[in-house]
């Protein structure tokens, strides 16, 4: 379970998070939607500790992410993160990309790490790309590679930060399909997305992020089809996808 309690975060004088509360249960898929630059990425980064918080509390399975004594590297193994810019490691093959963390973080031996990597690459449909370098793969394939890389650490949660926004339109589907598959496998996911159909059809709940807080949150259909917040109404009618 991931719990955010009254989380505040600013960059200098810019207040980005102004008291965010959110509880994500096991097996749940929560989509975060909201205007560009509103702080959705920052919110995700406060969960995996890439950003520090000013006040409040973030706990993952009872562990305080921002507490002094927390082993953040260990905690992050529970939290797979997929970025908008997929950040594949360009000097490594697909298989090496996925096997790296199991080898150096989980200390698996080479053969075991490769086995884990192969299984996850197969899972995201990259069975025939093991020995390809990222430069030889499409954006969609690289993003699925990034998903496989995160999955190889056997995370309990997956955080997606606009995983499809940097992709050419024709490559979006394959990545969304992979995310759908994860959702149906029961993965707990927090998904920052501009894909309104994904938010509506795949997530259990949708949260609308506005001016530093979650202005509206509820069951996906309810939020998407009968939004109460006037800004959300406007946001949804202006979103094409």
């Amino acid at each position: 379970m991931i719990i955010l309690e009254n989380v505040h975060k600013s960059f200098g004088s810019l207040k980005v998070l102004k008291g965010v509360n959110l509880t994500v249960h096991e097996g749940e898929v929560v989509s975060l939607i909201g205007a560009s630059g509103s702080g959705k990425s920052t919110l995700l980064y406060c969960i995996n500790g890439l950003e520090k918080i000013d006040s409040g509390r973030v706990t993952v399975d009872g562990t305080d992410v921002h507490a002094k004594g927390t082993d953040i590297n260990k905690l992050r193994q529970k939290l797979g993160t997929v970025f908008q810019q997929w950040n594949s490691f360009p000097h490594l093959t697909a298989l090496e990309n996925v096997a790296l963390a199991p080898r150096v973080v989980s200390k698996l031996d080479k053969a075991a790490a490769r086995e884990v990597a192969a299984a996850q690459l197969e899972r995201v449909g990259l069975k025939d790309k093991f020995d390809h370098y990222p430069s030889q793969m499409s954006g969609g394939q690289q993003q699925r590679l990034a998903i496989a890389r995160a999955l190889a650490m056997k995370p309990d949660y997956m955080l997606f930060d606009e995983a499809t926004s940097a992709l050419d339109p024709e490559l979006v589907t394959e990545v969304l399909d992979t995310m759908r598959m994860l959702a149906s496998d029961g993965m707990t996911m927090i998904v920052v997305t501009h894909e309104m159909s994904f938010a509506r059809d795949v997530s259990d709940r949708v949260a609308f992020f506005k001016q530093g807080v979650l202005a509206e949150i509820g069951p996906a259909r309810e939020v998407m089809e009968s939004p109460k917040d006037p800004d959300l109404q406007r946001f949804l009618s202006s979103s094409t996808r």
Partner: protein
Amino acid sequence: MDYQFQWRPVIQALPQLLEASLVTLQVSVLSMGLGLLMGLVLYFIRKSPILPLRAFATTWIEVARNTPSLFQIFIFYWGLGEFGIFLSPYVSVVAALSFNCAGYMAETYRGGFAAVPKGQNMAARTLGMTAWQSLRYVELPQVLRAIYHPMTNQFTWIILASSLGMLAGLRELSGETQYFNSRTFRTFEFFMAAAVIYYVITKIALLVLKAIGWNLFKAERAAK
């Protein structure tokens, strides 16, 4: 022009010249290796939040890059003597050349690290890697790729600059050449021969580095 070429003394001295070439090569490889390591450390401490550390690194880099290499060798060989530190010619030349190389490499590293997108570190850290693991397995290999070409140039430069070592009494290739020159007065022949040996060493070094790069940067080749 009635200068008579006489190559016999050169041929007789060839074993010694080749042996001295090994000293040249040794000094160069050692200085390059140390320079690469110290340059990396300099790059990091120049970004340190601690002002004295930062000032130390900046001074080093500035002095290394903006004063003659010969002076740098003299400082290590003669200059330190003033403070009661006496280094052998070998040690002072290696120290001076590494000092110099580190200064240049610190700058080169800066460009190399700038070429690695921030997302690489973020991705590595979210996988649970420590800062060190991210550096070691994700960032440095990419930095190495970016600095590889300037680094090979630097290495060529070091091989040639090591000839200044003769002025600190080091019997590397130039020192040895000068020694035979002073005994035989076949100046042209000896320095001609030494020049050819330098040329060959440099070319071989470049070939070896190229082969290493070819093995190291497979991703690069695959992309083509």
